[in-house]
């Protein structure tokens, strides 16, 4: 049986494009909503802390610790996002691996 490499390649390109689009679309949407949620929550926290400082419920040192802690928290959020990006790439590669093997074997009719 002659192997039609051009046909295999064309089918794979189409499938890979679809897979990449789906993966990236989901990732971008998640990253965007995550970022907005963190900013909104930080804004609300800052307002609350300023009010509590003004009311004398907290010392200046405690207030400063909370503001600096938010910066540290942001760093941890960024690390989570960076890690999730790496995981998304790993998942994409694993899906690509499955896609290539199943597509080729199906086109070549070999098990």
């Amino acid at each position, binding site marked *: *049986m002659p*192997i039609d490499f051009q046909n295999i390649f064309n089918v794979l390109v189409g499938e890979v494009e679809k897979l990449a689009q789906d993966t990236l679309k989901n990732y971008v949407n998640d990253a965007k909503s995550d970022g907005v949620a963190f900013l909104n929550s930080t804004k609300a*926290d800052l307002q*609350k*802390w300023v009010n*509590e400082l003004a009311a004398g*419920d*907290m*010392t200046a*040192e*405690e207030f400063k*610790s*909370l503001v*600096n*802690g*938010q*910066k*540290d*928290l942001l*760093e*941890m*959020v960024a*690390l*989570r996002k*960076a*890690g*999730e990006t*790496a*995981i998304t*790439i*790993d*998942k994409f*590669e*694993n899906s*690509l*691996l*499955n896609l*290539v*093997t199943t597509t*080729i074997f199906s086109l*070549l009719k*070999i098990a």
Partner: protein
Amino acid sequence: MKTKKLNYLFKIFLFSALALIACNTMSYFDQYAYTQSTSIKVDAQNLMDMATEDYKSHEKEVKEVNTKIQKIYEYEKNRPKNEFTIKQWEILRDTTKDLYGGFIAMWRKNGKVGKTFIENKKEQIGKAFDQISQLESKKIKQSEVK
């Protein structure tokens, strides 16, 4: 016969090529690491509730939680491809920063801290622990890799 041989060689070539791109960049999901991160979060927050009282009277409890954090940090350090999680634990426990490590350092320095501050800090540190457990939960399970 020739075609069969060609198919066989093609299969070998294909598996070899794909195996090269199939190396993950991140560690796999680890149930122990996930359980520890969520469990220590609760321990740390319970400890923080004690910070309205004198630090010296709670040194034993502080040491217990610190030891748990030290143990999971050492565990995480020895997992391959785990840089993001290791860095997260480093920030959380760093006494010069303002999360768990910084809170304990402040409590030790001042003797006690205010209740309003504790409530706010518990929430902030809780979110920091969540970053670790959320990242762990997103990691690929070894059983998912075909």
